[in-house]
């Protein structure tokens, strides 16, 4: 389950019309959400609040080893309107699962952002500031996010920790997203790592609005999916080492008539690593994912399977009545997640390492129960068990 502060940041992205999915880094976000989820360790409590539309605080208390905790504050120049109280938060916002990609949105025009007052431009760039200190480790995380232009965003994240080399590290990330393609440039102070990432979406350019009338043929050829390709390149100036990878993705779009699915294929030519994922949303409540890794230098392979299941409560009193409703009758609209009793995520790999996560909402508390098991180690099957509780107002 997403941290409250991550949720707030996502709300900021949403409010500033930034598409998180249109990045090479998010190419296999679905597979990662279904296969690489973190299982909690020990007990963690989080109390948070969006005190004002521009200001959020969060306090965490955990007992991993010793009692530790964190205090975080967030300021956003853009008022955030998303519902963030734990009682009526949208579970789809906090539970990362199958990411159903939407049609690409045409980026805002520059002049849309201009605000003039008395002949002067008075508009400001949207900015987000976030800081979090972990105690008693005295580790500080800081984030500076700024929407420079409608197609550009600057993200500077820093960690200060005495345990790290040079006492900390700073990562600067400049992101450009013009819909059709997106590029990212990064620089990390740690070993002077430089990186570049790019993603190209095949298909129609969302910036070019069709001016000619749509022909019948074009209607018939309506796009059901999107094909994207991307690459990344890193080079550390100080340690003179680098990394490279390329990736492909095909995903169905909402106007696809069958069940939605996503396929990705990534390749690391330097290390010989080939990874393919296939994720399918088999129903409104079920998503399945598989990943196969193969290294053609060492012939090592790995297989992982995962699923996500939304369990919904049946209100038995009205079931019979609902059954009698004609399908074309309009049902009373109600909140989508009201009947969700919990979301089960599970993954297993070919080493019989199992991770299980049970997330949901009880009254006004969001909870995450998780365990990771290793069936091969008979003496210690449970490797980690934990529970996380979140409350926000």
């Amino acid at each position, binding site marked *: 389950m997403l941290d409250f502060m991550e949720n707030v940041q996502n709300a900021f992205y949403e409010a500033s019309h930034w598409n998180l999915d249109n990045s*090479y*880094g998010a*190419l*296999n976000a679905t597979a990662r959400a279904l296969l690489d989820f973190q299982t909690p360790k020990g007990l963690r409590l989080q109390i948070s609040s969006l005190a004002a539309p521009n200001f959020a605080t969060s306090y965490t208390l955990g007992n991993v080893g010793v009692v530790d905790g964190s205090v975080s504050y967030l300021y956003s120049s853009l008022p955030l309107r998303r519902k963030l109280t734990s009682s009526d938060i949208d579970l789809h916002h906090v539970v990362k699962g199958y990411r159903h990609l939407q049609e690409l949105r045409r980026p805002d025009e520059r002049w849309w952002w201009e605000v003039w007052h008395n002949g002067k431009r008075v508009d400001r760039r949207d900015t987000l500031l976030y800081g979090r200190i972990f105690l008693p480790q005295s*580790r500080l*995380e800081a*984030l500076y996010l700024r929407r420079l232009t409608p197609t550009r965003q600057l993200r500077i*994240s*820093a*960690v200060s*920790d005495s345990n*790290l080399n040079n006492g900390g*590290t*700073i*990562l600067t*990330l400049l992101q450009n997203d013009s819909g059709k393609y997106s590029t990212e440039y*990064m620089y*990390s102070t*740690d*070993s002077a*790592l430089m*990186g570049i*990432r790019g993603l190209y979406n095949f298909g129609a350019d969302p910036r070019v609005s069709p001016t000619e009338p749509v022909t019948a043929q074009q209607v018939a050829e309506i796009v059901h999916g999107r094909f994207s390709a*991307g690459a*990344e*390149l*890193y080079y*550390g100036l100080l*340690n*003179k*080492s*680098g*990394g*490279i*990878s390329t*990736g492909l993705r095909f995903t169905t779009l909402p106007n696809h008539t069958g069940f939605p699915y996503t396929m990705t294929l*990534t*390749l*690391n030519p*330097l*290390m*010989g*690593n080939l*990874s393919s994922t296939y994720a399918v949303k088999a129903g409104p409540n079920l998503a399945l994912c598989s990943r196969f*890794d193969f*290294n053609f*230098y*060492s012939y*090592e392979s790995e297989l992982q399977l995962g699923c996500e299941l939304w369990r919904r409560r049946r209100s038995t009193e009205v079931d019979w009545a609902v059954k009698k409703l004609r399908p074309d009758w309009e049902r009373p609209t109600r909140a989508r997640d009201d009947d969700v009793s919990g979301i089960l995520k599970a993954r297993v790999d070919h080493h019989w390492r199992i991770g299980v996560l049970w997330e949901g909402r009880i009254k006004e508390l969001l909870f995450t129960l998780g365990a990771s098991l290793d069936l091969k180690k008979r003496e210690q099957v449970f490797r980690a068990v934990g529970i996380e509780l979140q409350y926000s107002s």
Partner: protein
Amino acid sequence: MAFNFNWSPLIADTSRARDMLTTALNKSPKPPIIVDDIIVTELNLGSTPPELEILEIGDLAEDRFRGIFKMSYTGDAFLTLKTKVQANPLNTYLSTKPDFASPMPLAAASGLTIPLQITLSDIRLSGFVILVFSKQKGITLVFRNDPLESLKVSSTFDSIPFVRDYLQKVIEEQLRVLFMEDLPAIIHRLSLRLFVPEYQELEAETEERLEGTHDSTAPIDPLLTPPQDAVDAFGNPIDASQILAQSLDPTSEMHASFSQKNMLRLAALSESQRTLSLFTPGIREVVFRAWAHNSDRPDSGTVTPGLTQSSLSRIQSTFGGVRSQTSSIASGSTGQDTYSSRPTTGSNYSAPTGLNLGAGRGSRQMHKRKKRVVDLRKSKDVPLSSEVNTPLHSTNVSDTSSIIPEEREREEELSTPPETPVQPSLHFEDEPSRLQENPTIASTAVEGLLPAASFLTDPPKFSKAKLKANSPTHLHDLASEKKERSLPSRSPLSHHRLRSSQQATSPLLRSLSFDKVSSLSSSGSKRPTSPPCAENTSASGGILEQAWMMKIANEIARKVEKEKNRERERERSRSRASQSSSKASATNAHGGLWPLEDELDAPPAYVA
């Protein structure tokens, strides 16, 4: 002086060293680039031995050595390791970084593990080595500085400069840790296996015990099993119920009783030591050692696993009381210290009261002793001065009392100071039959011996024997015998009164009592060789007391030592004269008079 180092047998079998190296290398946290266990596949010590230059020799004996060397090695030893490494530098780099500021590459950081074989050769070492060898403790080898000068690392990745440099750096770091921390431990363990045969048994035993089986496989210790013809430390027969009671009392009591046969043997042994006799009775499970310094005496426990710390120190302190109390007090280990300090303080206390009751054991006596400790602190100056003259006798008496619990109460009421020779002689008169018995024991012991100079090797048993042989033994016998006899004649009322008063004292003090503290310390700190003792770790919270007692004990020890030195001078001259006459007859003639004990010379091993 020359040393002959035999290098070739070291080269012969390195399989065990390989195993130990493997575990040592995998113990410390590995750098992220190494993703599998490090396995030592080949280890060759080479044909060139290291050059050793002796800088200093601190201690030298047949079975002990302490010295400082300057070592330099330019030999042809090599070591081959096998492991798996992460070949993707981005992966290892990111694994140590916090996620928050990580670039989060999609697939550029995917791993590639490569089996790696590393050969370490051209090892150049130079440094100062401190080597301590003792037959009981094995070899302790410590590097004073970082000995690694240079090293050649050749691996599968020699063609990639970055990886090669990285490996060289990482391996050098690991090796430095190995030399400074792990190698001394490995050598120590290896040497223990080599020199101390009990070590392996003990290892197995400890494992068994860890598994929870409180095995009664104590046959290592013939003294542990209740002897058929049980006697206490001073030759008095102990009846079965007493043995039972003692064995019920945890570990510390276990060894209070010895078989008469063993006592005789030990007596003979000690006599042979003292009379240059060539005859040494065969005693099982005993390693004979050279005349040792006091500091080496704690080691003796390693040789005789059967003796618990408690019994050992009791005997030693008794003995030390006879001759030089300091020797037992000044002994090195903490466990020993606390224990041996016990009789001392007991005697310390008893000096003002007139009779020593200090070392009584059993739960009833414990709080009593505790009280005495408090008393001691208050009137520290006064008893100390008087104590200097009398520690010997009082200690002896106290030990007697401790072994036969009933005596204690009786003793408590005796007001005659032990230093007055009248008291023992009283016993003597009381108990002529007993007197007759004892000399026969001693005399048989003496007679059975041929004059020779044999190295007496087992201090605890030796001291036991000494105890037996010395005239104080008879004294104890007499004293205890007399008390036993006279006990019924006492009015039972006083008896009860005393007991009730003892029981009235708080149980808390009892729990903090000495026996537990010292047995705790002895079981915890060292003495892996006395398994029964190690189990007695239930008591807690006596640390302060222990520390304080040690301090006091050391203080007393110093004073006693001074006194002893003076006395020794006197005795030297006297003992020469008394040596001519047979010891047994001398004891007989004097009838256990206290001054006589002073004449009995301690072997040099126990003279501080």
